[in-house]
Every structure is written in C-alpha cells, then in structure tokens.
C-alpha cells in the first residue's frame, strides 16, 4: 500500500507539470481563437460603424481572456483520468506500460498479490530516476508561432482599417449619450408633472402625453438631427397646449393686477389673495364665504372687488367675467335671498377654480416647453461642438472667405446654427449665412421677404425643409455622401429643422 502511494505521488507530481504544460499551450490556442473571433466580430462592427477604438481594444482583450478561460475550462472538463495520466506519463518517459499496468493490477482482486507487488516494484524502480519536469517541451511549436503572427497581423490590420469607422462610432456614441441625457431630463420633468397635485389627472395626462411620446421617440432616435426634430415637435405641442389655456391665465392675472391697483380701504380675503396673485387662495376664500354671515361692509367690499375683477377680465375671459359680475350684482341687491346669493358666489368660485386650473396647466405646459427648448438647444450646441472644425472641412453656412456664393453672417466666424436657424430665416430683414444659389450678397430671409412683399405665393418653409431633409436622408443612406462629410450634412439639416 505504501509503495502504491509512493507511485501515485510521483504520478501526481508529474500530473501537475503536465497540467501546467497543457494549460499553457491550450490556453495559448484558446487566446488566439478568442482574439481571432474578436477580430471577426470587430470587422462586422466596423462595417456598421458601431465600434469605437477603445471598444475595439476592449473587445480584443475580452476575446483573448474569454478564449483563454474557455480553453482552461475545456481542459478541466477533459482532464485525464488517473489511468490516462499514467499512460501519458509512461509514454513520455518510455516506461513501457509499467505504471498503468501497476495501477490496474492494484485494483484487480483476482491477481495474485505477489504479481501485484512485482509489478509495483518494477514500476517504482523505473520511475525512481525520473525528473517529473523533464520530458516537457516548453518551446512554442512553429504552427503556433504562425497562428500568433497571423492573428496579430489581423488585429493590427483591422485597427488601421477601422480608424475612420472608429471615429464615426465615437461621434455617434456621443450623440447617443447627449440624447440619453435629454431623455433623462424629460423623464424627470414627467415625474415632476406627475407629482403636481394642482393639476387634475386628465390635465396631467394631457401635458405628459407629448413628453412621453417624445421620450419614446428619442429612445429610438438614431441621429442628433432626428432627436432635435422630435424635441421641436414636442415643443410645438407644448406651446399649443400652453397657448390654449393662456386666456384663463391672462384673465386671472389681469384681475389680480386690477385689484392690486385699486385704492380700496379694506380688502376682503378674496380681494387680498387675488391682488397678491394667489389665485387658489382667492378661490378658497370665495368658497368659504357664507351669504348669511356676511355684514354689509364686507358685502359691499366683495361686490366691489368682484365687479373690478369682472371688468378686468371682460376682454380676456367674458364667461368668467359674467359669473363674477353676476355675483357682484347679487351682493348689491338688497332683496336677493341668501340662497340665490350663495349660488352666485359658488358659481363665481367655480369659474375662478376652472380658470385657475387652466392657468396651472398652462404653466406646466409652458414649463415643459421651456425644458424641451432647453434640451433641443443643448443638443444643437453639442452637435456644433462635435463639428470637425479647423480640419479643412468647412461647415455648410460657415463663412468661406472669398468663394463666390458664400453668405455673410453677422459675426463672420461661422456659427451655422445661429445663422441658419429657421426662425431667423423666416424673420424679416435678418441675414442668413446660406445662399444656395451661389450668388453672393443676399440672404434667404431677404429673398423671402421680397416675395412676401411682392404678393407672390411661396411654399412654406416646413414643406421645403421636408423635401430637402428626405433627399438628404436618402443620400446619407445610399453612401452618396462621403463618410467624413455625413456629419456635416446631418448637422446642416438639423440646424434647419423648423
């Protein structure tokens, strides 16, 4: 038993060296395969411009590590049994099946002990002088060297081949990061609106819907100009929503200003709140009034305040003005019964309540519109920062020295978005830095103004923009535009987005 243990110990020592030897070479093969697979993956990713330089290096490293790991895992899964190791051991040191036979005989019950011992002694004698580290060839075979050189060459070649695509992918990633930041900002805005208790459920839904639609579209946006377009659309929706309720807001504010300017000796809580632009408090004060418990002095003061408020909002909100005036009239009538007076006051309070809610929604929509505008401007600013200026790639709309057709900007330092912003182009008399006709001197804004002045009909800017944008997109998709100029085209149309 002791001799058998000695034999196994010797075999185990050899097995460790064998495992190390096989692990190194198997690991090398796995690493090469992993890197090769990474290069192939990278090649496909480069063709779609979705891989950055740093990501390529990470991919290679990761591929190598995974390949090495998998190879070691496979090696472990296919680890040799004791007998297989014994056969490899005796094969390496030409032990003529002594070890494997001794191990098998040890496990056999039908073999005479004397024969088992003789075999064991023979096996021990044959392994006594063997250095377990000897017999391993640690040199890398020439085929492995060849594979190493090929894979390295492929990796380096792909690195140089993919430089242009790496840059494009970097720009795209930056754009996506900017878009994602704006998405986060919009989501925070949505959360804020959801927590706004001054709005009813329906009003919240009304304000949030365009924002959520914008968030969903932004999540799928592939380019900066698309994102800007989405934000602009959402901004328009918000503006429309804000303007729809602006009348109510304006009426309340006008009423408040009117009361604030009034020289009344004593103001009721309603009047006080309204003059301080605390509209909800004013509504609450109106609701709390009781027709029975009101003295003449308060009644008169309130009537006066209501009348002034009604007068102030006569133009902006006739309906609410009518309700307030009815309440003021009711307060002045001596013969009015208390129930009718109370009803008139409640009607006035209800009308004011609605106006106040509309004003809150208008404010929320306006706030959202501002946030959207901020996001859009932020994206446009980011796009401008990403322009390859100073690298011999003049921006469209950028001043280009003495070339014919170059427009003149106000600053002359090439701020294409500022110069070509849609609002500026449509603005009368302002100069824009783009003249597609190739003639120098006049800006589009001036041309449009002339047409308008002469009474000729022209198509809307949006219609033109859509046609040009569609054409530009087709060009970008069909590779008609050189890779290096695509961002320029994209940014140009992004800046023109109405």
């Amino acid at each position: 038993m002791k001799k058998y243990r000695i034999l196994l110990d010797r075999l185990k020592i050899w097995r460790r060296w064998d495992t190390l030897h096989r692990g190194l070479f198997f690991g090398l093969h796995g690493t090469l395969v992993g890197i090769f697979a990474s290069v192939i993956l990278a090649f496909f990713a480069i063709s779609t411009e979705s891989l950055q330089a740093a990501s390529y290096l990470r991919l290679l490293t990761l591929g190598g590590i995974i390949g090495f790991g998998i190879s070691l895992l496979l090696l472990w899964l296919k680890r040799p049994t004791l007998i297989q190791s014994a056969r490899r051991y005796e094969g390496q040191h030409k032990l003529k099946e002594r070890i494997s036979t001794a191990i098998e005989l040890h496990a056999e019950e039908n073999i005479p002990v004397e024969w088992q011992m003789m075999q064991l002694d023979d096996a021990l004698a044959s392994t006594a002088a063997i250095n377990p580290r000897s017999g391993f060839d640690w040199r890398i075979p020439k085929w492995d060297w060849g594979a190493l050189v090929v894979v390295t060459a492929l990796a380096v070649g792909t690195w140089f081949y993919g430089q242009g695509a790496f840059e494009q992918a970097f720009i795209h990633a930056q754009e996506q990061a900017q878009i994602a930041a704006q998405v986060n900002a919009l989501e925070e805005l949505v959360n804020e609106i959801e927590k706004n208790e001054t709005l009813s459920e329906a009003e919240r839904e009304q304000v949030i819907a365009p924002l959520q639609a914008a968030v969903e579209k932004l999540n799928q946006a592939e380019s900066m100009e698309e994102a800007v377009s989405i934000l602009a659309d959402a901004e328009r929706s918000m503006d429309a929503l804000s303007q729809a309720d602006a009348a109510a807001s304006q009426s309340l504010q006008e009423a408040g200003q009117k009361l604030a300017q009034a020289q009344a000796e004593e103001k009721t809580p309603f009047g006080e709140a309204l003059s301080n632009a605390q509209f909800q408090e004013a509504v609450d004060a109106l609701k709390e009034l009781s027709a029975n418990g009101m003295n003449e002095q308060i009644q008169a003061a309130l009537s006066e305040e209501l009348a002034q408020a009604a007068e102030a909002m006569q133009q902006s909100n006739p309906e609410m003005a009518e309700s307030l005036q009815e309440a003021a009239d009711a307060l002045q009538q001596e013969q009015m019964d208390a129930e009718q007076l109370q009803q008139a006051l409640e009607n006035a309070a209800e009308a004011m309540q609605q106006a106040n809610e509309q004003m809150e929604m208008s404010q929320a929509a306006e706030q959202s519109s501002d946030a959207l505008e901020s996001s859009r401007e932020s994206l446009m600013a980011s796009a401008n920062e990403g322009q390859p200026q100073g690298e011999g790639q003049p921006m469209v709309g950028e001043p280009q020295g003495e070339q014919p057709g170059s427009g003149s900007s106000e600053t002359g330092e090439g701020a294409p978005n500022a110069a070509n912003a849609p609002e500026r182009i449509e603005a009368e008399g302002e100069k824009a830095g783009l003249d597609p006709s190739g003639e120098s001197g006049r800006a589009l804004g001036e041309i449009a103004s002339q047409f308008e002045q002469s009474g000729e009909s022209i198509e809307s800017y949006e219609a033109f923009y859509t046609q040009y944008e569609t054409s530009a997109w087709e060009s970008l998709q069909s590779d008609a535009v050189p890779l290096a100029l695509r961002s320029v085209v994209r940014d140009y149309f992004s800046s023109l987005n109405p």
Partner: protein
Amino acid sequence: MTDKKIIDSYLEKARATEQEIQKVIVGQDEVIRHVLIALFAGGHVLLEGVPGLGKTMLIRTLGQALDLHFSRIQFTPDLMPADIVGTDILGDDHGKRSFEFQPGPIFANLVLADEINRAPPKTQSALLEAMQEHSVTVAKKTYQLDEPFFVMATQNPLEMDGTYPLPEAQLDRFFFKVAVGFPSETNLADVLKLTTGGIMPEVNPVATAAEVIEMSRITRQVALASHIYEYVARLVMHTHPDQEGIPPLVKKYVNYGASPRAGQAIILGAKVRALLEGRFNVAVEDVKAVAPAALRHRILLNFEGLAEEVNPDTIIAELLEKTGLE
C-alpha cells in the same frame, strides 16, 4: 517456490536455451526468439523459407536443448495419415492375436513436420486434432499426447513445385508463422565455417519437459493493461476488410482477416516476450514485435493481392503503423 523465483529461473533457462541454439544456428536470432516465444506460450510454429536455411536444424537443436522427446516426420506426397498418428496392427500375444495400437511419430514432445506442404491436404489434416486437442483418434479410440506437445513445421515457399498449400483451418492452428530469411554475408560465412569444420558444437540440455510446462503456466500470469487488450482487439479487427477505419492496404488486398486465435497468439506471445525482456507486464512494443508472426499466415489475400504478389508483412506493417492506442 515463489513465482518470482520461477520467473528468475524461467529467464535463466530461456536465455540458456537461446544460447544453446545460437551455438548451432547462426544469424537467425529473431527466428530463434520467435520459436522460443511460441514454445513457451504453448503454440505450434510454422517455419517458412527456401531449403537449406537451417529450419530443420533449428528444430532439432531445440529438441536437444530442451531435453524433449523429439521426432521428425518428413512430409512427402505419398505420406499417409497413419504414418503420422500411428495405426492398429495385428499382434501375437502368446498365441492370442489382437490389434495393438502402434503410435506414430506424432507421439513426442517436439514434432518436426518437415516440408509439411509436400504432403497432400488429407495427410496434412492428420495433424489437426493433435495440434488443437493434443490427442489423436485411431479406430474410434482417442490417445492423449504427452505434454508438452509442440509441432514445429517447416514449409517451402508455395510457389515452388510439388507443394500443396495448407488449408486455412490448419494454418490458423499454428501459433506463429516465422519467415526464415537468407542470412547476411557475415552470418553466412560463419555458417560455412561452422558446418564445414571438423568439430560440431555440442548442444546441452538446459530445461526439462516439466520446466517447459511450468514456464507455459507462468507465462499466462503476466499482466496486461486494459488498453493493451483493446489495442490487440483493434489490430485483429482491422485486418478485416469490411471494418471501418482500416488501413487502405487491408481494404484493397485482404479477402479474409485474422481469427480470434490471432489475438490470443499476439497476447500470449507478447507475454513471453515481456518476460524475456525482464518485465512483468506487456508493453505495446511486445505486441508490435510478435504481431507479424501471429498475423501473416492468418491474413488471406484476395485475387488482387495474390496477382500483385503482395507480401502480407507489408499489410501488417501498415496495420501496425496506422492502428494506434486510444
């Protein structure tokens, strides 16, 4: 006596026997080794070679060295089976006549069947029962042969005139077929010097019949690793042309592959060789060393192989090269 001591004695006697034979037979060490392997494994040997190479001398010397009862049968076209196994003859025992069995030359420990392929198949087949069962049957009565019993047959190449090819069943009963080649020039000079001088070397008996039997018993104790068994089985299977993964030469030239007896012969022969090499276990090299002698007479060539005079040894060499351990 322990097995270890028996093995030591085995080795001593085997080497002594080898040396005694080498006194007379010069330059045929491999042939002598194969004959001894077959002998200690308890098998019969077929020696093939052109006349005059010392085949008969080798067997006779072996008989002298082992102190065995030796007999020689010269096979001729008119040799009858009864001339080999014996026959009942009418005897007179004090006036009472009765048939008595007169044993033939097969009743010996070591039988030299010289030029076995000179006799017709009917006579050759007289050896079948003796070789397999170690007994002969004459007039419905079976007689047991003395142990150890070995048939050492010689034959001339089949293409020579006046030869009858041995039937496959009989060939299969030979443990080994040993090809006796022409000696080298140096060895031939030694042979000439030895056989034309006035003094012939004296061969001394170094082992008895009982010791040979004991050596056969101890041979079977030698151990084999399981993968060696598998390797031998694969070798035998790969001699069959209808198997998968066989060498191209087997597929092209072999009609019938080796029988399971070939596998037994390889393993037993390898065991003897391992002992003679001083080991207690069989190695792959033992298998490879004895495989040609065990397979060459058991591989039957097809018409194409016969027409192209393909040597079975060529096929076996490829078989050994292409069949690996798994």
